[in-house]
């Protein structure tokens, strides 16, 4: 029985290969190979070398030296720790707030259309534009937020110069821009829930919270998990906002893994070391993707 199944499977694979359909996959496969798989293989290879960008013809194998160095590099540790902080600050809030906003504006009405447009507009702006916009708004000298605080008699806040404030402030900016897309996904999920379920619950005397807890949440659990995973991986990949707003400062307090890798590779030109950071980063992302697959599969069952 097992052999028959295997043969059928093999035949299907061969049919697929020789049917010509495989040609349609070729463009995507070629692009992914060139821009993802090949660089990843190179990065793994370089991570075991002392490749210095200005000496491409003088590369030596150094074994696990780069990985060992990361273990002792306090700036790398700080960057990893900061990335974890970004995830902690952003992920739960982004998921909860996007769900909250989606619930508020899921019903079709003219006012909600206006709100949807307003909430979604930050997402269509370039990250660099948003970063510069908030940099100006929160400027300690001329930003409107500090002017407002001063007019109320409060002390001006050094949002980007205070090592304790800079990371939460950048997290807020990322949250502000990213929330709308997640909101849209959850809103679509909410609109798919049959209204009959809510009507039945109302007839049974359920209150709003009970409806949310027993109808809404179980119905959109899959999408919430999806949003959770997308936001987590996206947050780990933060680089532009800290690069544009604070360049990782003050005192490295806003640097992320990717920003540190970028600095090591382009500014210090240590490709070998930067590649080792990339490999560790890729492993973290693969682990998250693995958890995602697990969760989604369990959800499917």
């Amino acid at each position, binding site marked *: 029985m097992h052999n028959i199944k295997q043969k059928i499977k093999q035949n299907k694979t061969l049919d697929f290969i020789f049917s010509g359909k495989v040609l349609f996959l070729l463009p995507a496969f070629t692009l992914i190979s060139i821009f993802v798989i090949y660089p990843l293989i190179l990065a793994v290879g370089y991570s075991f070398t002392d490749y*210095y960008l200005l000496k491409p013809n003088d590369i030596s194998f150094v074994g696990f030296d780069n990985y060992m160095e990361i273990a002792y590099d306090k700036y790398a540790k700080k960057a990893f720790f900061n990335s974890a902080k970004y995830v902690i600050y952003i992920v739960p809030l982004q998921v909860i707030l996007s769900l909250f906003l989606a619930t508020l504006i899921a019903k079709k009405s003219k006012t909600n259309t206006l709100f949807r447009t307003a909430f979604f507009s930050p997402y269509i702006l370039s990250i660099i534009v948003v970063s510069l916009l908030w940099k100006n708004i929160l400027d*300690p000298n001329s930003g409107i937020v500090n002017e407002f605080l001063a007019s109320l008699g409060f002390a001006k806040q*050094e949002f980007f*110069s205070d090592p304790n404030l800079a990371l939460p402030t950048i997290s807020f900016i990322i949250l502000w821009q990213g929330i709308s897309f997640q909101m849209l996904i959850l809103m679509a999920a909410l609109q798919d829930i049959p209204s009959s379920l809510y009507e039945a619950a109302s007839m049974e005397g359920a209150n709003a919270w009970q409806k949310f807890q027993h109808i809404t949440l179980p119905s959109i659990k899959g999408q919430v998990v999806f949003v959770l995973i997308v936001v987590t991986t996206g947050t780990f990949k933060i680089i532009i906002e800290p690069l544009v707003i604070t360049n990782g400062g*003050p005192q490295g307090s806003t640097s992320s893994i990717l920003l540190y890798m970028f600095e090591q590779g382009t500014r*210090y030109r240590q490709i070998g070391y930067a590649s080792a950071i990339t490999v560790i980063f890729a492993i973290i992302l693969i682990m998250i993707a693995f958890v995602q697959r697990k969760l989604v599969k369990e959800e499917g069952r």
Partner: protein
Amino acid sequence: MKNIISFLVIPLIFLALVACSNSSNNTSENSDAEEDVKELEVWVHVPADDPEGENYDVRAKEFEEAHENVDVTVEHIVKTGGGSGYNDRVNAAITTGELPDIIALESVYVASYTDSDILLPLNEYLDQATLDSYLDTIISAGSVGDNIYALQSFDLSSPVYYNVDLFQEAGIKVPADENGNWTLDLAWSYEEFLENAKKLKDHMGQEPVHMFTENNGWHMYAHSPIIFSNDARMVGENGLDTEGYLDNNNTMEALQFIDTLFRDGIVASTTREDAFALEEAAISFEGPWMVDVFENEYPDLNWSIMPYPYGKGGHQSAPHGSWYIAATQNTEYPELSAELVAHLTNKDSAIKMEEAAGLIPGHKELLDSSETYSDYPRKLMLEQLVNTNHLKPKSPIFPVLEDALGDIMEGIALDNGSLESLINDAKEKVDREADRFK
């Protein structure tokens, strides 16, 4: 299925055949011409409509006209904020071995590039008279060891601005020579600077000195002269050793002075944009381009320029450095490339750049006739460029040194740990990188 294969394969075969036939035709037709024409490629970081970019184009044309069968192509690869756009292109070309004959590079990176055998020693191809024409500052910045690798027709020196009215109101007597000018030899020592800054603070009721405190290249460019003027250094002669340099008494003393400026409320811990222009600061370490801003946008501002404060007599230092021009080892025509570097940075270029952008001429002969820098206070910028020490480290790990100094300065500004711990952290950062080069 057959249709799909035909659809994809036939055009590919056709394209391959066309490409082959084209290349074979070109090869046979142009082979003679290619042998005769010497093609030189120049990469610069400025757009063609910028005065500097325009100047390179003009000089390249002149060079072509003066040399038979020489074709010079200037490619303008515009740099982004941190110079990354241009630098990325150069980095990629280094990796693939496709560097052009001539490149523009920041003078502080000359040591990194020479350490990697990328640049051509120009002194092997240019005569002494040509080289002697350039300011010693430019020769020094473009040299590593006994060789000269990069040149430029101009240089920059950042001034220290002061507000004449606020000085008078605070009762500060400005040091002056017999002509009433605050000259280089009348610079304030650390103690004098501090004493007068305190008077200004008492008068103004706020931090009287403005400095940019964020960690970027500005600390190395504009603030490091204050430190180096105390006979302090970050690294030894090899550009790698920190022991006995970054942690020696002179460096500690200089950083202690900076620390005092912040702790005593002389400098604000965070940058106050436009503080000097708005008369909220009486002294400011800002770029030379602010001269035009002050003159055009703040006509009532009574500003002047003072010399950099110094730590130990005889060690005065001032900002310098810019983007320089160098020939690469990739060139097939080293002699011609070296000659082109000299032509791109010649006296005509210096005159043009002074006229167009107010930059200090990089040729000795032009200093006396310079219109922009003939009178004080601007003349002080020229004097400090020509007559002070230029101790920015020549090191293959310059970017790390720049960041390490920025870390220390930012740490002092934010009071983020003791001076010793900031220096130890910086040392650790530099040493880790230096170990890769030892």
